């Protein structure tokens, strides 16, 4: 079956309903969608989506074709096996912290080059801008050390083609 993680970068018309069209395509055809981010590009009439999904080769080919045939889709790019830069923003809020907890959090933040964005006596807000996989690891780490005390919000990955490695 060759199930694996795939990435698609999509140029779409920046119009009402296009996000619903794309997400509806995934739900309507039972394609598995892991994450989807969308935002305007340098041309405000165009939006760009980064879609992460897990599926087999045949389904992935079909997904790309289905996206391509959607009238509002300008371009479909397969980012799965090409050099790209990909990052996801992740907020982890740790609650009910003791002083010792806070010290531990600051040590982790230093070790992994994260950032403390906000804190109070009892809570710390950590910001991670990493790959999706590393963010998964961070969530697992904080969850292990501070079980049932963390609150997680993640933004989904955004990706762009690499410059230097693409030119080699």
């Amino acid at each position, binding site marked *: 079956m060759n199930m694996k993680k795939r990435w698609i970068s999509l140029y*779409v*018309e920046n119009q*009402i*309903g296009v996000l619903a069209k794309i997400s509806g395509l995934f739900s309507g055809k039972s394609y598995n969608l892991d994450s989807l981010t969308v935002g305007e590009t340098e041309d405000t009439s165009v939006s760009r989506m980064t879609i992460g999904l897990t599926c087999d080769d*045949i389904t992935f080919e*079909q997904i790309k*074709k289905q996206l*391509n045939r959607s*009238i509002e889709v300008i371009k479909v790019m397969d980012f799965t096996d090409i050099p790209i830069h990909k990052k996801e923003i992740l907020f982890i809020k740790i609650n009910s912290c003791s002083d010792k907890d806070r010290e531990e959090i600051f040590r982790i933040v230093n070790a992994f080059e994260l950032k403390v964005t906000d804190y109070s006596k009892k809570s710390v807000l950590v910001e991670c801008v990493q790959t999706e996989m590393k963010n998964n690891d961070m969530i697992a780490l904080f969850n292990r050390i501070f079980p049932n005390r963390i609150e997680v919000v993640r933004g989904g990955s955004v990706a762009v083609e690499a410059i230097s490695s693409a030119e080699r």
Partner: protein
Amino acid sequence: MIKGTDLFVKALKEEGVDILFGYPGGQAIDLFDSLYDQDDIEVILPRHEQALIHAADGYARSTGKVGVCLVTSGPGATNLVTGIATANYDSVPLVCFTGQVPLGLMGNDAFQEVDIVGITRSICKYAVTVRKREDLGRIIKEAFYIARTGRPGPVVIDLPKDIQQAMGSAEYPKEVAIRSYKPNESVHIGQIKKAAGILKKAKKPLFLVGGGVNISGANEQMTKLAEQTGVPVITTIMGKGAVPSSHSLYMGNIGIHGSYAANHAVSECDVLFSIGTRFNDRITGKISEFAPHATIIHIDIDSASISKNIVVDVPIVADAKLAIEALLEHTTKLSVEPWVKQVTQWKEQYPINMERYEGLTPEKVIRYINEHFENPIVTTDVGQNQLWTTQYLEIESNRQLLTSGGLGTMGYGFPAAVGAKLGNPERDVIAISGDGGMQMNIQELATAVALELPLTLVVFNNGYLGNVRQWQEMFFNKRYSSTCLTYRKSCERDCMNKDKCCPKYTPDFVKLAESYDAYGIRVMKEEDIEKAFAYAKEHKNAPTLIEFIIEREANVSPMVPGGKPLYDMIMDC
């Protein structure tokens, strides 16, 4: 500066629209008002919006032009939904205008407000709400272009009332430029040569032809290709007519009710050359045993149809006509006589017929049509009537058989015939349906009478929803759950008694037709078939409904049971 509604009318005229299927309402009243002052576009008023869109669909399929619908917001729009999905599956070009509440009220749950663009997003080619008056002309232009190009399909344009009323530019664009939509207009000659090379080496090649060949109007080319190569042809239901059904190289329909010859040919062929088909589950049977020995070549205009259900060896994304024309230049006669002889022998040895039933049968009625009508347009409903028609009807070309193949929409046949007759006033149009489907859009008798359309409506009445009943007979131990149409509450629960005296059938179709000022005649015996059609032909000013009382439990044969490979057929159901 002109009103939005006037630009709407101007746009339709520039697109060459001569017939519009419309049903008015509060949010469409301005549009209808603008249509009132002109004579170029005839406005047809069906009696239900679902029938309206099927009529537009029948018009579009039979003429090759874009069908145009205009309905009001809310229920007017939602009543189109089944017809939009029907057209989408069968690649029918439609532009559907829906009235909408004013922009300022949208989202407020206003009276007769629905999000029709949201509702239809997954069942149409494109759907859009016009939000600025200055976009109106461009959007209509794009809609017609999108509907008829590439793989055709339905487009929905939602028109808020204030956009309709707003003054703005009178200009209707001449050109279309959609950066995100570039239909394929060429054919990859390298792939054509590769396909031709594979075909040349084949010992048992077979053309499998789908609706795409009929839509692209490649019938002559397809026939020529079959003759030039000497390769036999089978079709899907939608592809029927791609080559004349009387052609010696035509071996019948493939599929779960396909012919023995077609199903066995596909199971034994070594090269399956398929053009314009989606490999729907109704034609493949068990996927893993579909064309097990074949190298598969697939031409389709929609790349998403290629390797969706069946993984193919040589994909060619192209319009069927362009591709076949290219193939004609790269193919010659193959020496495959033993194979053609074999398939022809199957065809002769195992013809489809209903000889096991005595007296009046659908086969005899359809064969009568074959012999006594010159180039008619035949529409079907869905169920046994559709399967019998696609089995027995002889047709010469495309745009002659209109049937809901993909969605399988009951209630399609009669309104589609209304639309087909409007688009082809000089041709005989026959709608074949069952007693179930006929009642799903029976109100169109009023439309057909009002328009003085001499349609022939063939109703095969067996008192059952026959196709489901057949399945219940074969696979559910004759438990006829909710399929008997003569049922009364006072009936015995399991009325398995052969000599049962069933309640009187309702409605009385003959009286019903007469109540609409149409003509009605009932046929109980084989020898009255001719009389009934003669009666229908006498009447030039209104439709004639012919009710054929057929064997209640007549089945469609042969059949491939669900999940079985195509060659595993029950020959006598």
